[in-house]
């Protein structure tokens, strides 16, 4: 029974399955539109952000970890000193997500009832910084220090074999906070996954205040008034960053093969790694004429597709559903938002293309190191 359960978990953890599940669930958990909101309520998912919901989430996570520690394979991964931060990350992300959403829902209720939000105090109702703030800060620091000391005493920092450039460990992993990027590397070339996407992340984050023209919802937790913005942010942060880190840390083993949490990290594991470029699909598989010599002709399909993706989609959307957005933001801000969003969505799209079609590159010009 337990073995069966483990194999189910292993199966569900496969990125293609788990990502699909998450993508399906995500809009219902964080409804970006009124339609989803209805279903969100109907499914009772709003109960997640209550004390009871929090307790359930906390219990489930703890249960998984406790269960994990009883398993030979899972405990090996969980027990790695440098993976401990991930556990802390998981706990704290869930806790603070719950805390933020709970506050937001409470505030939403207040707003709906026409009352001031929880954070609201009349302007004249102020407190002196000494000693309240100074004091809680001091206590927070002391507790943080205690936390660090206990962590340090309980867990020695890792030190592996001396550096050896000719012997790469299997798998060789980046620091955990970059494992999201490393996971992207499976699907994109380094120049995209390692350079362009991180730059877009930074630029996109910095652009947030300039793109989000909605002035409401500043200074208090809220969801209902800015559900789309929160949805996009949480999608980027939770799914494309934290989730990928968790996958990269816990589920990527030797040869960068995927391993379920309860699976043994076997170096001999073989999965069919078939990579077919879009050009090969077109010219070789479909037309059976072999690849044209000229790279631009060869990759024309991919180039056209990408141009359409980035060029046509915004126009189509502007004509359709997103017309109000365009009107509200103006064309520059609108294009920027759509571009960033399309780039963000390109990642899961490419993942699915890889999983379903074994698609290697949409555009593949290795001569110029230009692969997408």
């Amino acid at each position, binding site marked *: 029974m337990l073995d069966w359960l483990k194999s189910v978990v292993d199966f569900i953890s496969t990125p293609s399955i788990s990502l699909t599940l998450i993508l399906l669930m995500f809009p219902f958990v964080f409804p970006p539109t009124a339609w989803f909101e209805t279903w969100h309520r109907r499914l009772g998912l709003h109960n997640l952000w209550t004390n009871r919901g929090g307790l359930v989430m906390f219990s489930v996570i703890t249960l998984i970890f406790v269960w994990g520690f009883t398993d030979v394979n899972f405990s090996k991964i969980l027990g790695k000193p440098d993976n401990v931060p991930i556990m802390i990350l998981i706990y704290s992300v869930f806790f603070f997500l719950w805390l933020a959403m709970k506050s937001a829902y409470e505030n939403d209720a207040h707003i709906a009832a026409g009352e001031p939000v929880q954070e609201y105090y009349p302007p004249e109702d102020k407190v002196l910084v000494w000693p309240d703030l100074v004091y809680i800060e001091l206590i927070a620091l002391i507790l943080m220090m205690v936390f660090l000391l206990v962590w340090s005493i309980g867990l020695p920092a890792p030190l592996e074999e001396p550096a050896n450039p000719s012997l790469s460990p299997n798998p060789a992993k980046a620091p955990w906070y970059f494992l999201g990027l490393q996971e992207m590397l499976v699907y994109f070339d380094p120049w995209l996954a390692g350079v362009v996407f991180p730059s877009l992340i930074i630029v996109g984050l910095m652009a947030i205040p300039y793109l989000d023209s909605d002035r409401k919802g500043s200074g208090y937790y809220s969801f209902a008034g800015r559900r789309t913005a929160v949805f996009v942010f949480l999608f980027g942060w939770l799914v494309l960053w934290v989730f990928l880190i968790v996958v990269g840390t816990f589920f990527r083993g030797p040869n960068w093969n995927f391993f379920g949490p309860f699976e043994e990290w076997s170096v*001999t594991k*073989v999965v*069919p790694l*078939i990579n*077919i470029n879009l050009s090969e699909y077109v010219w*070789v598989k479909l037309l*059976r*004429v*072999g690849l044209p010599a000229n790279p631009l002709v060869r990759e024309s399909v991919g180039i056209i597709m990408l141009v359409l993706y980035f060029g046509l989609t915004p126009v189509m959307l502007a004509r359709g559903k997103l017309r109000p957005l365009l009107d509200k933001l103006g064309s520059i801000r609108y294009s920027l938002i759509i571009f960033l969003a399309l780039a963000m969505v390109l990642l899961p799209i490419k993942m699915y293309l890889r999983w379903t079609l074994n698609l290697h590159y949409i555009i593949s010009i290795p001569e110029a190191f230009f692969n997408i």
Partner: protein
Amino acid sequence: MDLKKEERYYHPDQLHRWFGISSIIFLGALVAMFGDDYIREWKTYQREFRQLDIDKTRIELEAGQTKIDSTLLGELDAKRRAAEAALARQQVQLDQLEVRIVEAEGELHWASMRNQENNAERDAARYQLEQALANRDNVKKAQQNFDQLTDHGRIYKGNEEQFQTVVDQLKQEVTNLGSAMKEAEDERSALLKSVSLLERKLSIIDPENMTLGNRIADRVRDLPVMDFLAPSIKIQQIIIDDIRDDVIFTTVPKVDRCTSCHLGVDKAGFEDAPQPFRTHPRLEMFLASSSPHPMEEFGCTSCHAGRGRGTSFSSAGHMPATPEQAREWKEKYDWEELHHWDEKMFPAQYSEAGCLKCHYLEPIIKGGDKLSLGLTIIEKAACFGCHELERYAGWRRRGPNLAHVTDKLKKDFAFKWIRNPRTFRHNAWMPSFFAQTNTADPASIRRINAEIHAMVQYLFSKATPAVFPEGVHLDTGESRVGDAARGKELAASVGCLGCHVMEPEPVIVETTLDRMNQRHGPNLIGLGSKVTPQWLFNWLKDPSVHNPYTRMPNLRLSDQEAADITAFLLTMRNREFEQTEVPPLDVEELDNIAIRWLAKQNTEEAARQQVEAMSPDERLVFVGQKSILFYGCFSCHNIPGFESAKPIGTPLTFEGSKPVHNLDFGSIHEIGHTNYNWFEAKLANPRIFDRDKVKPYDEKLRMPNFNFTPTEVEAVVTALLGMVKTDVRPEKLANQDLASQLVLKGRAIIKNHNCQGCHIIDGQGGQIASIIGDPNLSPPNLNTEGAKVYADWLYSFLKDPTIIRPNLTVRMPTFALNDLQWNDIIKSFQYADGTPATFVDLHDVDGSVGIPVGEFLASKEIGDCGKCHLIAGAKPTGNIADWAPDLALSRDRLRSEWMVRWLRDPESIMPGTRMPQPYIPSKEDVDFDGAEDFFPKALIELAGDTQALLETLRDYVYSVGN
């Protein structure tokens, strides 16, 4: 503008102007900074060298082009044109083929992709199957899946191969069509190969031969700021990890950037180029990758010293060979001596100093003649007697034993000799201690005379007569004085001149290693004024009686021979020396000296009383003892009472590494402030640094004067400079393998006992041949000795030499070496020739077939060995000068493999030997009617097999006398 209204103090114009001006200056300063960083000596040299290389390549190219046969080239061109035209006629066919190839390749690509995909699936299925088998779960399904994919794989692979064949065939057709063209092209490019290589080189380095793009790039790539992208001008650097630079706290790998300017140093063809581009003069020894010292493994400063990291003329630590060169450099390179870096470059004349730190085990360093000479002089002059030198730790005193001096000399002679040996023998090795530049004043002379009297007294009072071993018959009377004329002949022929010269007057001969061999022993002049006949006779009979550690060997002279030589040697006298007066002993001075010595530990008054309490003779002995200690006579001589005295000089083991500021230049400013300038001056006149100094006598410099010639000074300085603290990792040092060490251990004994005075060993020595006149009557060349003779034969021969060549008058003497030393010598020969086995069974002669054939080949009609060789005692028929060893000695003496090697080609082993190559019949030689009548049947069968026939000859030789 109303400043007050605007609440301003400065007028904006003023501020803007100052801002503008300061910004421009700032910009200018930054640009100047880049300029300053950019202009470097080595860049100029690299540009110049490139031009040099271009010019050279152009000349080579021109030469190459003229060498090409133009008619042949024309023919080939025509052939190619024809092929081209033929190919053009088939263009349609070609185009069709191209189309078909593209089509087929498209199919092939598809098929191979399908196959690859299937393979990937199959490998994964295999893993699944393995997992299933291990877990005993779903095996059947996994097996089925795997089998199916495997089956598919077989089909897909076949499919792919099928398309591959089609593509290959089509391509083959294209190739066939173009084969004539390709052939023509190939022939043409083969003809032009050397030229096109040069052309290619020029297209890379010569702007005139570059494409436009490359010419622009050539200009741009070395511009300031840009020059990190793809510079053509860059610092060249060699890092050598196992030769280290000492930075006191630790050592760091050597880093040599010399080749940033010395760009042609490792390339042949720049022998006549100006510096710094010239090719190294000994490329076969250094820098070339096939040489023993490849550049990338040794760099430059490992040998030449200097600061390898330096990239400018001065900062590299260049040092001029002469003051003229220094002036020239100052003018040309703005040279100044590098400060704050001890290890400056060796000036050109001292380059060889660099060899020693790795080759320190070699008594004679091949290719380092000056260094070897320096070391030999150091050994001969016995510098290590007074100066501790680790290299010579454990070496014995080099001068005569004075424990039995009374047997040999008179006091009179001793006084005059000590005062200045050169008055007796113009080239004495014993240095001059007295009346040097710092002790020539009357007071010093007075003291010196008294001291010499005292030393002589000490020596003669402590000496005892030599004790001869029981049963040794030695003459003690004068009756044995023989015939001087016969003695002269004997001395010339028996081998004395291997180690001694007889030069009554100074001769102008450059000091070389060969000359040092000849001057191994003293110049044999004036002995009649020096020694007693008895002593000389006894000494010649057996030198070890008087000095158990003497290196003079025993020539096994008969009593008559010894007497004759004695008589001859005694005829040589130095009348002038004999007539020199010995000044009387100055008793007052003697007392003063004694008091001064004693007053060092006591009050003056007590010292005086102590002296007064001594008898006159005691005073002499006391002062004599103090003086011997002061001058260090015991360093070279065995003197009773000083058996364990310590050396008195500064240790020289790491003299080359001594910081210059530890050398006292005194008031000598006319020489350069470097260690080698100091060494030069010191060796030329050891007292020079006392000039203009006021010192009591016993604090004056007392190193004696060896009267070195400039050549000798240079050689010794080379050796001294080489004595450095090394940070060379063992793997880089020379002679770290056991074989080399064994070779060199023996070679050291060989050098010490001057075997090379008579024999040629390692291509060096054997000067006695020039005195004997005929190399064939001289001691043999010992080339391949280790491979030649059996170890046990050699051992017994060296212990007790027997006559091998009866026609030689020169004799192999008996050396008083112990068994360990003999073993070292024998091993040295063996390891040098790669035949280290000690015990070898004598060759088993095949008596049935070999001997008769060999005998036939050696017979009078064919080889006629008996013409020169003794055969079991039978005298040769030929000229006595051509006599050769008795063949009967061969079997016990000569190794069987060496014999065959020797017989095959004697000249290659002993250049100049009179031994001819024996006649060995070939197959054709025996291929005539009636050959059976002439040749033995066995020989005819073997004919053509040189090795086998040589072996029969050897076997015959071995059979002689057995």
